[in-house]
């Protein structure tokens, strides 16, 4: 199973397997040769199993979970996914910025869940660099989203200086 993923401004195929909130040890065991993204609760409680896996394991945070919970293991994580239960839930934007700014995380931050074309520009500004779009989204239209604005007033991950320090 591959995910339709936008990364670095292009459509790429991706082999990480996203495991749902109800993931248990058996489910992960059957995936021993696959790279998986597990929910936070599993990540926190099953470190023994995770460290013995031959393949990579990443974690996803729901919108009510904060990056502080994984702060100690960020150097082990190639990918952190942040879930949008619905697109109007703005908490993952703060989580992404915290991962980048406060914790200096440099791996992939992937937007998952209700990920729609019209929010991509702000997501990227906040530090997301991979976008697993909702199934019904038109990829060609979505790819145009990153050009919505030429510049921005605020500092963010993509532009560390506010406009007032550049104009």
């Amino acid at each position: 199973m591959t995910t339709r993923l936008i990364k670095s401004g292009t459509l790429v195929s991706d082999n990480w397997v996203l495991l749902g909130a109800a993931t248990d040890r058996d489910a992960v065991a059957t995936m021993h040769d696959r790279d998986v993204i597990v929910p936070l609760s599993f990540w926190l409680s099953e470190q023994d199993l995770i460290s013995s896996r031959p393949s990579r394991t990443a974690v996803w945070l729901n919108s009510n979970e904060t990056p502080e919970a994984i702060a100690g293991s960020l150097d082990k994580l190639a990918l952190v996914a942040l879930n949008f239960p619905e697109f109007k839930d703005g908490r993952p934007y703060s989580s992404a910025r915290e991962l980048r700014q406060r914790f200096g995380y440099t791996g992939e931050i992937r937007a998952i869940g209700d990920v729609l074309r019209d929010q991509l520009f702000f997501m990227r500004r906040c530090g997301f660099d991979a976008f697993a779009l909702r199934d019904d989204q038109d990829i060609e239209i979505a790819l145009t989203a990153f050009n919505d604005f030429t510049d921005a007033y605020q500092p963010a991950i993509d532009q560390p200086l506010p406009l007032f320090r550049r104009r």
Partner: protein
Amino acid sequence: MYRYDQYDHQMLADRIAQFRDQTQRFLAGQLSDAEFLPLRLQNGLYVQRLAPMLRVAIPYGMLSSTQMRKLAFIADHFDKGYGHLTTRQNIQFNWPALADVPEILAHLAEVEMHAIQTSGNCIRNTTTDQFAGVAVDEVEDARAYCEIIRQWSTFHPEFAFLPRKFKIAVCGTQQDQAATQVHDIGLYLLKNENNEIGFRVLVGGGLGRTPVIGSEIKAFLPQEHLLSYLDAILRVYNREGRRDNKYKARIKILVKETGTSAFRDKVEKEWQLLKDGPLTLTNAELERCRAFFHDPDYKALPTQSSALENALSTDVLFASWYEQNTSAHKKPGYTIVTICVKKTGFAPGDLDSDQMRFIADLAERYSFGEMRITHTQNLVLADVEKNELYNLWQALKTRDLEADNLGLLSDMICCPGGDFCSLANAKSIPVAEAIQRRFSAQHLREIGQLSLNISGCMNACGHHHVGNIGILGVDKKGEEYFQISLGGSADHNAALGKIVGPSFSQDEVPDVIDKIVNVYQQHKTPGEKFINTYNRLGMEPFKEALYGNKSDDHTTD
């Protein structure tokens, strides 16, 4: 006034292209109602009872004659020839067609205006005292800071999907006509002992279903830290504000549930990560923004004007208007004029396109081509020479703009209500008119300063909680009823009104207001304002006058 540079222009051009594309995708069925909703709201577009409603931002209430003429053009070409001034110093058009909105936005951009973030769960238009820059005894002109906040909040990528809307007011005047204490964040400009500028920061004020006066979380925030501190507050709110219940989602509920002190600690902790970073304001930026609000080319004038004195002694109607609608200006020989848009028989805050053009001309002739919108839905010409006041007043008379009731009972704040708004429980405009018709000009003048605010529902767009008399439309078994509160105030001594008792039918309201006013007039000491009499007497005599022994007959709401 602030003027756009190429960056600001590009930002608007990009926004219009984006919204044009979103609107086309919506009309083509590629974007669902639910997905389009926050996108259109963040461009000021509501779908209302009769038609879409477009709310255009007037940043901190400042408007040029050129901009006003453009609003008149939009009213004529895309609406039914009028607009409505709002309590956030914005203007609303009630009849545009959805498909026309991108074009309207393009027209607005030509005059450096927009509808960005005038609605939706994001940071809204920042407001201030309409006398900023001209008030006597001002600490500091708030407008440069409002503009700095406008830019920081415009398309802030992290805070476009907050739990709920977010309103900021900045106040640098002694009087506070910005209702600063009932904002999500209220900022009072002040100077410390070293004469350095900073802000007293209040958080968690608001009206709506749960009215709250804001709590202080910082006694003195040095001005250079303004944006990093705002970022910290917003991040705490974005992360922790409630999203499970729309009615508990404002920051005031978070502050209450967390406790002011614990909330302050969370903000401080977040701020330590941001403080002294790139958001720290530079002197160059402060100077750049202040330069847009430097004094206009004032003449050196004597304090007294013989032309004014003559007119005052010969024309009593002018004298009456002068007494009520003008305020002291910081420069000798100048006056602040408020045009009261509350003439009986006209919906409060409504201006037709002829009036808009006419006022734009007057502003050019008498007040350096600028005007301001007030949160009480009136218009200010801030820099009028005393020598010209009589000419100005005579001109105003020709267009029904000479109402001399500023600050009086008939100068009500009133939301559009059930005539237009799909949220309203009741129609507020007919109630406002019935009250206005009840009182003669003479009687209004005897009553004196009294604020009467009307909201058609508990969302409180008409600020009923902070009116000396507040009127709230409620639904009682499908009938429109009105609940009366007393004792509210929106100034430096902000207070929330208390409900008097069971609500009244629409027909009863003018009588009810009359009875309340009678109690005041019977008990007031010479020169005592309504609010002071109320605070001295308490609720009882008013209650007695309204309900007597009959209050048992009413059901309690």
